[in-house]
């Protein structure tokens, strides 16, 4: 599935597009620095986007668009953790934008909300996949995002809040609920084998 990237509008991302006249100066990173940054972040970003969207092809497009926007953004810091969070924030917003458009296309009368139900098509696509993927597909996109950032990326509550655009105080409760839901799903699917 090809995503028409030009149509994507990043409504929630502040300062993602370069202000007028800043396009040239906005390339703060030189090519070598970018290559190093890309090597470190591209696989985790692809992994994150493919698992929260449940669509590898879409993830591929979103990764590319995320880097384009990242390179044109006015970054406030050279800190690598900040830059990585910023990149994930762009990716998250692009994925959300895609879901909103898809929801509007499929159900014109239903207003897309932040708390979207689990994507039915995603659930259908992974029906024959592993139990783990099926459990993930049954979570809401935001639950997948929070769990991924917390347990795969090791992000703090503050960092998760920055990436998904919520207050840090809300993250603890949302993370607890998502974790409990995922744990129940894993127990039901027999994936709770425990760790060594």
């Amino acid at each position, binding site marked *: 599935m090809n995503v028409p990237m030009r149509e994507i509008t990043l409504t929630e991302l502040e300062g993602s597009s370069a202000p007028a006249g800043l*396009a040239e100066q906005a390339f703060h990173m030189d090519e070598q620095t970018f290559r190093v940054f890309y090597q470190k972040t591209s696989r985790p970003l692809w992994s994150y986007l493919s698992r929260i969207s449940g669509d590898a092809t879409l993830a591929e497009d979103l990764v590319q668009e995320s880097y384009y926007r990242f390179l044109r953004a006015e970054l406030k810091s050279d800190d690598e953790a900040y830059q990585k969070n910023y990149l994930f924030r762009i990716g998250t917003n692009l994925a959300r934008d895609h879901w909103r458009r898809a929801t509007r296309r499929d159900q014109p009368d239903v207003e897309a909300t932040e708390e979207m139900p689990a994507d039915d098509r995603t659930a259908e696509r992974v029906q024959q996949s592993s139990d783990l993927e099926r459990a993930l597909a049954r979570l809401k996109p935001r639950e997948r995002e929070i769990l991924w950032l917390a*347990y795969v990326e*090791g992000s703090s509550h503050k960092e998760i809040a920055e990436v998904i655009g919520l207050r840090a105080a809300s993250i603890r409760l949302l993370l607890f609920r998502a974790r409990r839901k995922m744990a129940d799903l894993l127990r039901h699917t027999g994936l709770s084998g*425990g760790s060594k």
Partner: protein
Amino acid sequence: MTIPQCDRERQVIDALRSGRWSGPWGEEIREHAAACPVCSEVVLVAEAMRQADAQAQAEARLPSAGLVWWKAQLAARRAAEERAAQPIAWVERMAQFFGVLALVGVGVWQWPRLVAWLRGSKRPVRVPDVSAGIGDCAQQVFQSLARGFGQSPAYLLLVSAGVFLALLAFAAYVVWREE
């Protein structure tokens, strides 16, 4: 709603991420997690998520960094060009408007001479009878336009021509500077 918490939750996540969890250094934290309901749930979910990550990373399809860099530069250049072209396009539109206005003004001003010249031409130019009507009509429109601005038709003509020439010069300067 009371959220069950454990102070060692962060340590558990760090141990899992760093790989210390499965080594001898992780024995103490493993014992804690086995006894703590919060941490055991964290371990269950975190391990599942990390397993999903490992599967996803194995099947990642990524373009090269060089290609992404090149495409991003191309997109930025295109955006910069579009932005730079915006004022020129505006100046062009304005110049067209004032140019047409000046042309109409000259036409109205010199209409009798123009008709005479056309009639007196050696080539058989046929001036329709309605030409006088067109001239009168254009003259009226131009004069009422001038009255609308509170100025004489000659003043409007001079201003239009002046603005047209100024905009033309400005557009030429912008193009020269860009190049």
